[in-house]
């Protein structure tokens, strides 16, 4: 049992942390998210050059690590509120290729993800599906050796920046059946794909993605037709663990910012940090943070275990971290008082990102229900 990181993992952390510290200060981020593109392709290229986009892949796929490396990178992303699509492109699309891709598909796409030339978004959510990964109105009908996709995917994070999409679609069965779910790789430029792009409240970009008779070849299918729900659950759990790490990084900075502010801000002639009612709230924020770090480690460590163990621990982590994110975010705004309400301070941006993370890959209630199903009785 140990909670140490290898030298290589520490180097990953140092590298990403320096890059974000030096090139992703709050003003830079503000300009980036207000720009036309809304992200920094040149930073993405730099991340690729540093090998960061290869970090979660195995050596045979051209990488050098796994889930722990993804955790480290996302924690640092969270500290700087970096908006770049590491989770959709590297963790999600990368995950599908790692766990379900054929040799040819890995050959074709993993290199592109690692080099940054291909950017993926993960189109799985639907307007009426909420957090149920099998509730799909999008269909893929077999047509000779090809498939024809029709449907509408909701809030596809990073889609405006993507060259490719990973799409979940129903190849058979009823709308919520566990069987009949399949996964496809779709070139975003394919005929029949249209998007409506927009900004999100936490500084990212997303799209509604529409598929109208989009024809893809049989080679675009990842895994077995109609049998991919377990694969999707696994990849979404990996993404959930990664977003938990992002939350941990964001909470760390939120706590530090709040503590700092409580030292500077004076009322009644003294720093507000001298008031016990605020001290105890900050002590609680610290405890929430430490419990979240623990759960983030636990979820990451358990990702490669059997399905039930993985799901139970990932859900436990997302519940605990979702609750901590809400408490820390709200407490930070409250402690900052009126200044916390302004767009001027960074704390508001951290609060907004944490608030959206609460619902990403399943809310507290969703994961609580999954935890109960796996542990009660």
């Amino acid at each position, binding site marked *: 049992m140990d909670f140490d990181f290898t030298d290589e993992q520490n180097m990953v952390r140092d590298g990403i942390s320096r890059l974000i510290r030096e090139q992703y200060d709050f003003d830079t981020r503000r300009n980036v998210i207000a720009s036309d593109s809304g992200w920094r392709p040149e930073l993405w290229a730099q991340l690729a050059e540093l090998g960061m986009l290869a970090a979660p892949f195995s050596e045979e796929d051209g990488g050098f690590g796994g889930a722990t490396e993804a955790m480290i990178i996302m924690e640092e992303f969270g500290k700087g509120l970096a908006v770049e699509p590491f989770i959709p492109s590297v963790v999600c699309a990368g995950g599908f290729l790692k766990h379900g891709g054929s040799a040819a598909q890995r050959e074709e796409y993993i290199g592109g993800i690692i080099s940054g030339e291909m950017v993926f978004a993960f189109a799985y959510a639907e307007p009426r599906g909420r957090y149920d990964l099998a509730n799909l109105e999008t269909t893929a009908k077999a047509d000779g050796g090809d498939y024809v996709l029709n449907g509408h995917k909701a809030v596809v994070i990073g889609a405006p920046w993507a060259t490719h999409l990973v799409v979940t679609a129903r190849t058979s069965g009823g709308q919520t059946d566990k069987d009949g779910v399949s996964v496809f790789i779709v070139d975003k430029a394919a005929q029949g794909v249209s998007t409506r792009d927009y900004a999100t409240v936490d500084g990212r970009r997303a799209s509604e993605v529409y598929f109208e008779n989009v024809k893809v070849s049989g080679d675009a299918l990842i895994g077995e037709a109609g049998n991919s729900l377990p694969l999707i659950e696994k990849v979404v759990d990996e993404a959930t663990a990664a977003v938990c790490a992002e939350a941990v990084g964001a909470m760390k900075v939120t706590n530090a910012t709040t503590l700092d502010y409580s030292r500077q801000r004076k009322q009644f002639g003294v720093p507000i940090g001298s008031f016990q009612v605020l001290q105890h709230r900050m002590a609680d924020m610290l405890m929430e943070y430490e419990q979240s770090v*623990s759960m983030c480690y*636990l979820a990451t460590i358990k990702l490669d275990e059997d399905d039930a163990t993985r799901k139970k621990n990932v859900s436990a982590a997302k519940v605990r971290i979702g609750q901590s994110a809400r408490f820390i975010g709200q407490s930070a705004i409250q402690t900052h008082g009126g200044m916390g309400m302004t767009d001027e301070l960074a704390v508001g941006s951290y609060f907004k990102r944490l608030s959206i993370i609460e619902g990403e890959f399943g809310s507290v209630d969703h994961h609580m229900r999954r935890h109960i199903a796996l542990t009660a009785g």
Partner: protein
Amino acid sequence: MNLEFTEEEKAFRAEVREFIENNYPQNVDARGLRDDLSPEDMLAWHKILGKKGWSVPAWPTEYGGTDWTPTQRYIWSEENARKNTVMPLPFGVAMVGPVIYTFGNEEQKAQHLPGIRSGDVWWCQGYSEPGAGSDLASLKTTAVRDGDDYIINGQKTWTTLAQHADWGFFLCRTDSDAPKPQMGISFILVDMKTPGIEVRPIKLIDGGYEVNEVWLTDVRVPAANLIGEENKGWTYAKFLLAHERSGIAGVARSKRGVEQLKEIAASEMLDGKPLIEDMGFATKISQLEIDLSALEITELRTLAGEQAGKGPGPESSLLKVKGTEIQQRLTELTLEAVGYYGAPDFRSFPDDGSNDFPIGPDYAHHAAPTYFNMRKTSIYGGSNEIQRNIITKMILGL
């Protein structure tokens, strides 16, 4: 980063499990109330462990410790929880013992450590006073030097199990003119049979007698019983409190408690289905289990730090707060789970040897008293509010 136990650790677990299976006195079960145990029951396992050399695992080996790593000590507590053992009382092994071997002189070590290890000497803690709770340093019990003795006068309270104690360790004021109240306190060992000591039981809200008032009137104690230097007692007292807090999280016991709660919730019925299938109650259990996982990993992180040479620091305050919150929630949910049968006072049940008309399920008998009793955990050992003060000062630096 991994949570795997090494082969050596797995072998260690097998060894201690076998020892517990073969040696634990079957009739002594920690699941009831401490009140139901005789003093002999409370010491039974301690004495067996004393003979085996396992009663004080955390002590340095030169004083009889086991040289177990923090991970091994964790495994030890898990295996004991698994069997619901009644562990050695903390007053000797976890509190005064470490003070004596750290700050005591050779005579004191030779006189007291063997009895603490073996379980032959029962210790109690004379810290709190009616006017000195969280503000412990304001204590008023005095020890006045008179030749080779101290004369102690004053009143202590909340003295746990003092009714059985052979010895006590007392914080006394030896300098009333010190510039700060913390600077005039001394740490003195007192034979509880000394004339002038009166122990009066305090009945608690759970109906039990666990704590006492201890009145000290002209109690003459040899000055040789002073630990370390006169007026430096606060340093030793704080050292003791930090020791007391490590291990206070009680993770292993709470894990067992969650299993027992689930068993209860599986036998209680709601709308014709087991209570555990009710989404409302199941949510509370899952929340508890999730919070307990977080606490467990946090404790393991602290242990890993300790193994790497970091002593127990202010993180132990976090473990105390979160650990006791979970212990309390567990008893809350148990009382909730048993429904109406939480109400009957089992102490009033006629003891006529007949079980023709049982009063509710056995597991319901202790639900309410245990819930009442466990409110103490967020008050003792430095209240949870005091722990937040410590976090504020030591970690946040405010």
